[in-house]
């Protein structure tokens, strides 16, 4: 199968938004998707973008059943480790089910690693759901370590009303 990996453009946001929803369905959390392609466009293609995106594209003759030629994406941004310096965080990596097993996922991941190297990043981090064995195996095969297992790190979040409350008061310890 012919495919090419390129930087996303503003015009790709509808496709990216479609695939974000497909990935959320796979992760069993589709009701958590609250933003549309318009916000993605605003946040990813402004002067100081909040994320970067790569897309995988197939030629017209190999388009999907529904007629899509953009069949995979990788969404990432730069973070910072006070121990080691600049890092890339791979937020989303997804390939449509009918295009799997053809090296597109590996291609996207390698391209992100290449970008990381060029920007002198020393690490690539991501998060995976504990039940998502295919993904955990995919990353482990490429040399990733599960830091939640080896070092006990847990992801924590404040959002919605809790963030609001925190902003409005300084509670006593």
């Amino acid at each position, binding site marked *: 199968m012919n495919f090419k990996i390129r930087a996303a453009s503003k015009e790709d946001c509808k496709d990216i938004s479609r695939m*974000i929803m497909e990935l959320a369905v796979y992760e069993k959390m589709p009701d958590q998707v609250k933003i549309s392609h318009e916000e993605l466009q605003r946040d990813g293609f402004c002067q100081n973008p909040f994320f970067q995106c790569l897309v995988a594209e197939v030629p017209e003759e190999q388009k999907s059943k529904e007629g899509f030629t953009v069949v995979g994406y990788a969404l990432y941004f730069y973070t910072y480790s006070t121990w080691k310096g600049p890092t890339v965080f791979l937020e989303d990596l997804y390939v449509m089910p009918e295009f799997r097993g053809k090296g597109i996922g590996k291609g996207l991941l390698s391209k992100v690693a290449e970008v990381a190297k060029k920007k002198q990043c020393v690490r690539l981090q991501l*998060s*995976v759901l504990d039940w998502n064995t295919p993904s955990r195996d995919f990353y482990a095969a490429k040399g*990733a370590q599960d830091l*939640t297992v080896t070092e006990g790190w847990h992801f*924590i979040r*404040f959002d919605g009303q809790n963030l*609001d409350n925190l*902003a409005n008061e300084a509670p*006593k310890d």
Partner: protein
Amino acid sequence: MDYKLRKAEPKDVSDILRLVKELAKYEEMEHQVTLTEKELLEDGFGDTPFYHCVIAETQGESSRDDPRVVGFAMYYFTYDPWVGKQLYLEEFYVMDECRGLGIGSEILRHLSDLAMKTRCTGMMFVVAENNEPSLQFYKRRGAEDLSQEEGWRLFRFDKDSLVKMATPAEE
């Protein structure tokens, strides 16, 4: 003890590195800090900063004393494709001798306020599961442990794996 919160400046990098190492020691991973003051300076105060920093500074016992940097928080903006901008809290630390005075709470309040003002829908960070005091501090204030509640695990590729992946294989 009087203290004030302010934005970090280039002159603060040596204090920032000192506190980074103190926090790493508390997390029992001090030997993992390889960053230098020079890198902190370039990465935080260059053309494209990778991070932002807020400092807690005390005035000292008398007006003749130099102010002391006793706490800091380092953060940057990340992106959740489901809900948009997030404020990511990378480091958050108050020196042992200055705890219990509300400095940590005030830093967290300041950051939450900043998150709301910059249109972030959440504030995220990681905590080691054996760090009970920190886990309780955050849970008391309404934080969710996503690793426990949704099963998210943090993965990392280090430099060697990164280099291997970046070099295209013969397919």
